């Protein structure tokens, strides 16, 4: 019997798990995929928004501003890269200027600090590669960037180090309320818990329906992105947004914490919650729009493109409530969900308290987790010490990103443990560089096979049937 079951190991579930692991509670995180951070968390703009976007008074506005303030400390404790690079909403004409003024006023009401309107000259001095036809911009010095899956992995790892459990490949198929507890079923397993927190992202409406809450729906909004080589990472230093219009928020151009350049997202509402296909139209849309905002975007330096699905709720605001006793929805967490995530976690803890959950401090709680980038960020002297202690740190496996076997072994053996090639990629960045795993993929497959004691041809890209190899060529096995 668990005290708490959290459904969904995305950034929201992850940070709630971590916030609850401060207390003496038996926590279980249930995830339908083979790894954490596999839904909307995996593919979004990776932005910590300043908080001028959301309508004043909304939960989105309140939690965004608060979350964005909490983020640096959370990232420091979890060893996650966070960069306060500031953001710019750029405008081209009078209509844009009017919108920018509205955003400024809204931002002031939302208590966003340091907002300022910049005129063309100041703007060009700050960002020389911005389009020449720009007229003004809203500058938000508190805007920042973070890696959403890095944050999620670290938060869940930290929660697990503090006692929480993680069950992957546990797709919730039903929830039964008996007496005072919930029983949660997957196809071949079940667990019991006193409290259930629904952070199931795109599927949170379906989970809510399992306990009889039909008050909201969630649909998928497709967002396609293009990621460029680190050689293009210095094109801009701020996150560049287009002034929002009737046509939507537009394409942003931003550096990532890893030093790449990210372009996107498109924004298309779709019915299929599984359709993560990129489209030819999407590429063209991103490229055309990005080029309007920033001059000389080197599209030739593309290293990958991908599509994420945002979980858009039917109410227009975050849906954080308790429709049934001891059951909490954390749904419709679209943008600025990542920015708000630390504040959402705190908000949910309070909601649980209101639901009668007794919170006793966990005496062994440690808020800190050793950074996944500890080796990478170390000085040469420190690195040499680490190599001496563990020679695996002297073997570079991923040549593009300079990732060592030591870091890959840590990803496999630290909480939450990597089980597949993509899991290694998100934890270490190995396979994420310009060759996209062409060289290191076979080595990493071998390391996973060896460390997990799983046959080579059973290693997958991301669980399920996503096998890398289909059979052995020699020795007569499974031909």
């Amino acid at each position, binding site marked *: 019997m668990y005290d708490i079951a959290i459904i969904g190991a995305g950034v929201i579930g992850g940070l709630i798990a971590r916030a609850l692991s401060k207390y003496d509670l038996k926590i279980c995180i249930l995830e339908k995929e083979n790894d954490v951070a596999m839904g909307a968390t995996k593919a979004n703009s990776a932005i910590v928004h300043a908080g001028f976007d959301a309508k004043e008074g909304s939960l989105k506005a309140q939690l965004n501003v608060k979350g964005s303030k909490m983020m640096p400390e959370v990232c420091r404790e979890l060893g996650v890269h966070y960069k306060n690079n500031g953001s710019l909403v750029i405008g081209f004409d009078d209509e844009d200027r009017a919108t920018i003024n509205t955003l400024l006023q809204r931002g002031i009401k939302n208590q966003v600090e340091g907002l300022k309107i910049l005129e063309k000259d100041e703007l060009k001095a700050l960002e020389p590669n911005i389009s020449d036809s720009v007229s003004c911009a809203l500058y938000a010095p508190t805007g920042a960037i973070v890696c959403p899956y890095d944050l999620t992995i670290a938060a869940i790892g930290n929660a697990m180090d503090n006692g929480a459990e993680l069950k992957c490949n546990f797709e919730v198929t039903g929830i039964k309320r008996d007496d005072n507890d919930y029983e949660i079923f997957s196809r071949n397993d079940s667990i019991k818990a006193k409290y259930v927190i629904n952070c199931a992202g795109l599927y949170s409406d379906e989970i809510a329906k399992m306990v009889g809450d039909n008050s909201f729906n969630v649909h998928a909004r497709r967002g396609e992105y293009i990621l460029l080589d680190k050689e293009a990472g210095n094109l801009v230093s701020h996150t560049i947004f287009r002034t929002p219009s009737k046509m939507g928020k537009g394409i942003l151009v931003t550096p990532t914490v890893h030093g790449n350049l990210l372009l996107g997202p498109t924004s298309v509402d779709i019915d299929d919650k599984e359709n993560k296909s990129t489209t030819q139209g999407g590429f063209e849309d991103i490229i055309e729009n990005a080029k309007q905002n920033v001059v000389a975007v080197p599209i030739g330096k593309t290293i990958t493109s991908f599509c994420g699905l945002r979980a858009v709720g039917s109410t227009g605001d975050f849906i954080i409530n308790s429709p049934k006793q001891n059951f909490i929805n954390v749904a419709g967490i679209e943008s600025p969900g990542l920015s708000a995530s630390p504040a959402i976690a705190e908000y949910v803890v309070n909601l649980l308290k209101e639901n009668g959950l007794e919170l006793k401090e966990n005496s062994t709680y440690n808020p800190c987790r050793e950074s996944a980038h500890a080796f990478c960020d170390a000085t040469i002297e420190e690195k040499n010490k680490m190599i001496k202690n563990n020679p695996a740190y002297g073997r570079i496996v991923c040549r593009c990103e300079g990732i060592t076997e030591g870091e890959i072994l840590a990803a496999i053996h630290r909480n939450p443990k990597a089980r597949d090639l993509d899991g290694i990629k998100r934890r270490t960045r190995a396979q994420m560089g310009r060759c996209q795993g062409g060289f290191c993929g076979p080595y990493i497959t071998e390391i996973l096979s060896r460390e997990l004691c799983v046959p080579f041809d059973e290693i997958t890209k991301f669980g399920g049937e996503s096998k890398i190899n289909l059979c052995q*060529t*020699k*020795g*007569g096995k499974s031909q």
Partner: protein
Amino acid sequence: MEKKLTCIVCPLGCELVVTEKNGVVSVSGNTCPKGEAYAKNELTNPMRTVTSTVLCEDGGLVSVKTDTTIPKEKMQECMQIINSITAKLPISVGDIIIKDVFGSNIVATQNRSK
């Protein structure tokens, strides 16, 4: 009868034309005598080198080749023979791994220590 071929003897890849007239076969388009021989052979008995790998006793692989060409239509059969055996270690480049496969020997093209 006239037949067009791409010569595979060397990377030049000459475009060969083989003509048969009253039982006399003539070749044009070649830049060397090997090309002529290849073209004539290709009409009657096409031959190929097979390269592959053989499983070693330690579970690793060693790369191998047929040390001469074998009939083209025997390639898959040759692969079956190659895939059916396990080689003893150590192996040096040139060691015969399997003798007399369609008139050729399967030889190692790599060194493998124990």
